[in-house]
């Protein structure tokens, strides 16, 4: 949610509160004017927020591009694996002229191996082609398992699976990419908002002026708006001041 949305939501909530209390809306319905001062420029607080977002938009590319080259190296989930293969092979494809065949594509009609937390047993074991020692180990596995040593059990596991669960769950640096990308877009949005405040917003209506607002408040007190629990209840009519 960007900054203008947040400020609009705040103004909306304030208006809704008075509406619920029984006051007919004395606040303006043009919410985006909340960010714009009398001259049509954003108010000082808004400037600070926009500048903050702008600063983030400079910091974030450093985070993002640092992480992107690491990300491409890792093998992702099932859906991205074909894309990764296609991406890494695109260089080779472009360099061979006139070749329309794609080499080294993953054959999806064969049983696949995967490392997934939610689906623990893949269709095929990790190591398909076994050498002599592996084959003898698999023969020994057919006997009683108490006869296997600890190293043999671990070797059998590594034949069947690529990563262990802790290895699958190892933390990645992806969050930096995500947060960096977020801040980039916040910054871009902030720039768009600044441009809008100069080139799009019409002049503010007179009802936003200081004098008008003061007269409006006085009129609401005269009419005894919500005198029990709401607006006028907070005004001391004897001392003529806020309680």
């Amino acid at each position, binding site marked *: 949610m960007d900054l203008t949305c947040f400020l609009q939501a705040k103004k909306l909530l304030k208006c809704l509160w008075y509406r619920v209390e029984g006051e007919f809306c004395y606040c303006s319905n043009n919410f985006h004017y909340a960010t714009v001062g009398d001259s049509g420029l954003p108010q000082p607080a808004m400037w600070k927020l926009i500048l903050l977002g702008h600063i983030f938009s400079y910091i974030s590319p450093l985070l993002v591009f640092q992480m992107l080259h690491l990300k491409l190296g890792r093998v992702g989930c099932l859906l991205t694996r074909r894309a990764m293969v296609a991406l890494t092979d695109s260089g080779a494809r472009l360099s061979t002229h006139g070749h329309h065949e794609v080499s080294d594509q993953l054959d999806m009609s064969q049983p696949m191996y995967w490392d997934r937390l939610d689906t623990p047993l893949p269709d095929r074991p990790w190591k398909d082609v076994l050498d002599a020692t592996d084959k003898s180990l698999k023969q020994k596995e*057919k*006997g*009683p*398992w*108490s006869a296997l040593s600890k190293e043999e059990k671990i070797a059998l596991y590594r034949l069947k699976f690529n990563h262990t669960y802790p290895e699958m769950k190892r933390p990645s640096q992806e969050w930096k990419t995500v947060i960096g990308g977020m801040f980039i877009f916040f910054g871009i949005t902030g720039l768009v908002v600044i441009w809008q405040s100069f080139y799009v917003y019409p002049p503010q209506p007179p009802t936003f002026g200081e004098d008008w607002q003061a007269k409006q408040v006085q*009129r609401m007190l*005269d*009419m*005894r708006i919500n*005198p*029990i*629990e709401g607006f006028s209840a907070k005004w001391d*009519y004897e001392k003529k001041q806020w309680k």
Partner: protein
Amino acid sequence: MSYSKMSLAKPVMRGLLGKRLRFHLPIAFALSLMAAAAFKFGVTEPRKRAYADFYKNYDATKEFNNMREAGIFESVRPTGK
């Protein structure tokens, strides 16, 4: 092929919903009742008291005259006009 006997304890297969309800329903009822009580004594009772106090010594004529002098009505202008 002979396998040495390995066995795990059989997991609980029945009564799972009943067990969950026996645990969660009393908590749910208790929390709901607490929420209702909190709302009653935090919101509705103070509100009733506020309204009662407001109308205990409320003089409608005096308020009307004050409002009239402030000039908000169109049917009765302030005295002296």
